[in-house]
C-alpha cells in the first residue's frame, strides 16, 4: 500500500488529460468546429435557461400574493417553466415584489449577489419600481433599481397574475436578445416595461 507522502502511482492521468485536451482544442480551433460548437451550445443553454426560469421564493408584500396566485391553478405559471426555489443559489430570477425598506436593502443585495450568473431581476409592482404609494416615506427606497439592476418592470398595484406571466414572457424575449451577458453588462439595454406597446 502507498505510505503517506509517497506516491506509488506510476501513471498520473492529469498530465495526459491536459495534453489530449490541448491537442483537441487546437484541432477544433483550426477547423472552426469549436466556434460552431460554442454557438450551438450557447443557443442550447439559452433555450434551456429561458424555458425554465427558476424564481426565488421571496415574498415581500402584496404583490407576493399575486405571485402566489400566478402559481395556482387558475393562472398556472408552472406551464411556462416558472418554478419557485428556496435558495438563491438555485434560482435564475429575483422577483422583487414589494417596497424595499432600509432594513431590507442590504439583504436584497446579498440575495442578488448570491445568485449565480446568468441572473435576471424583475421589479413587480409600483413599490419595487419607484417606491409606489410610499415614495415619500422615510424608510422606503425609491425603487429596487437603486440597489440592483432590473431587467423587466411590471407596473400595477398589484399587477394581475396575467401581467406577471406576460412579464416573464418579455423576459424570455430579452434573454434571446442578450444571451448570456452578465448582469453588470446590460446597461445598453432599454428597460422592458410590461404593457408598453
Amino acid at each position, binding site marked *: 500500500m502507498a505510505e503517506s507522502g509517497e506516491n506509488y502511482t506510476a501513471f498520473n492521468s492529469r498530465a495526459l488529460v491536459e495534453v489530449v485536451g490541448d491537442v483537441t482544442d487546437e484541432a477544433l480551433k483550426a477547423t472552426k468546429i469549436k466556434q460552431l460548437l460554442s454557438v450551438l451550445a450557447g443557443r442550447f443553454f439559452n433555450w434551456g435557461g429561458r424555458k425554465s426560469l427558476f424564481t426565488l421564493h421571496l415574498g415581500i408584500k402584496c404583490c407576493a400574493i399575486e405571485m402566489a396566485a400566478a402559481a395556482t391553478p387558475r393562472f398556472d405559471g408552472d406551464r411556462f417553466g416558472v418554478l419557485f426555489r428556496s435558495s438563491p443559489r438555485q434560482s435564475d430570477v429575483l422577483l422583487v415584489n414589494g417596497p424595499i*425598506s*432600509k*432594513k431590507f436593502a442590504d439583504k436584497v443585495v446579498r440575495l442578488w449577489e448570491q445568485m449565480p450568473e446568468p441572473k435576471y431581476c424583475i421589479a413587480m409592482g409600483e413599490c419595487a419600481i419607484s417606491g409606489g404609494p410610499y*415614495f*415619500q*416615506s*422615510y*424608510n422606503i427606497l425609491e425603487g429596487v433599481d437603486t440597489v440592483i439592476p432590473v431587467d423587466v418592470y411590471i407596473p400595477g398595484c398589484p399587477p394581475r397574475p396575467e401581467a406577471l406571466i406576460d412579464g416573464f414572457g418579455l423576459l424570455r424575449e430579452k434573454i434571446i436578445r442578450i444571451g448570456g451577458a452578465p448582469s453588470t453588462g446590460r446597461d445598453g439595454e432599454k428597460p422592458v416595461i410590461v404593457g408598453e406597446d
Partner: protein
Amino acid sequence: MSISAEQNAAAASEFAEFAEKQFGGSGVTVSVEHHSNAAKYAFVRLTCPPQHWIALAKWMRFDAGVNYCSMITGTHYPDGAERGWGVAYHFLRQPVRDVEPFTADVLKASDLSGASIPLEIEVLIDLPSGDAPVVPSVQSIWVGADWNEKETWDLVGIRFEGHENMHRVLNPHDSPEGFHPLQKQHQIRYHDFNEMYDDAQGFVRKPADEGRVK
C-alpha cells in the same frame, strides 16, 4: 344578540363612578363620552397627570378588571399651548376567562351585567413641551403594553421610564440616535409637492386650465 345600548350606558357610568370615587380630585378627570360612529356607544375617557399614572394603571388592571391593553399612541405637539406631547392609551375590558378543557364559554350578550359587560376605556396623558418627554411604563402591568411602548418610543421618541429592554422595533437597529420619524420637525420626502394633492380629482379645475400644470 349584541350588547344593547342600555347595557353599554350602564357599564360606562358604573365604571366612571367607580373611578371617580377612587381618584376624584387628584388630578384625574373621568368622563363618559360617546362615539359618533356605528351604534354611538359610550366609552370612558380618563385624563391623568403622569405622576399618578402607575397608581391608576394598577387600579384599572387589578381592581377594575381592565385586562386588555390595545393601543398606545404618542403624539408630538410642537405648537401646543397646554401640552408638548401626548400619550393616548386605549384599553378594553373583556369578559374572557379561562375555561375547563372540552368546554366553551358561549357568552350571551343579554346575560352579561356589571363588570362583565365589555367596555372601551381611553386614558390621555399630556406631557409638557420640551425635548425629553417621559412617562412611567406599564410593561409589568399589561404584557400587551410591552411592544406598544417600544413602538411609541421608536417612532415618536417618548421615553418610558422603567421599561426593560427597550429597542427599536420598526426602524432599523442602526438608525441614528434620536431619530424618531413621527416628530413634526421631520418632513416626508417631496413634502413640497403636497400642493398637487389639493383637488386630486380635478373637480375645481375649469376647461380653460387644460394643459396647464397646477
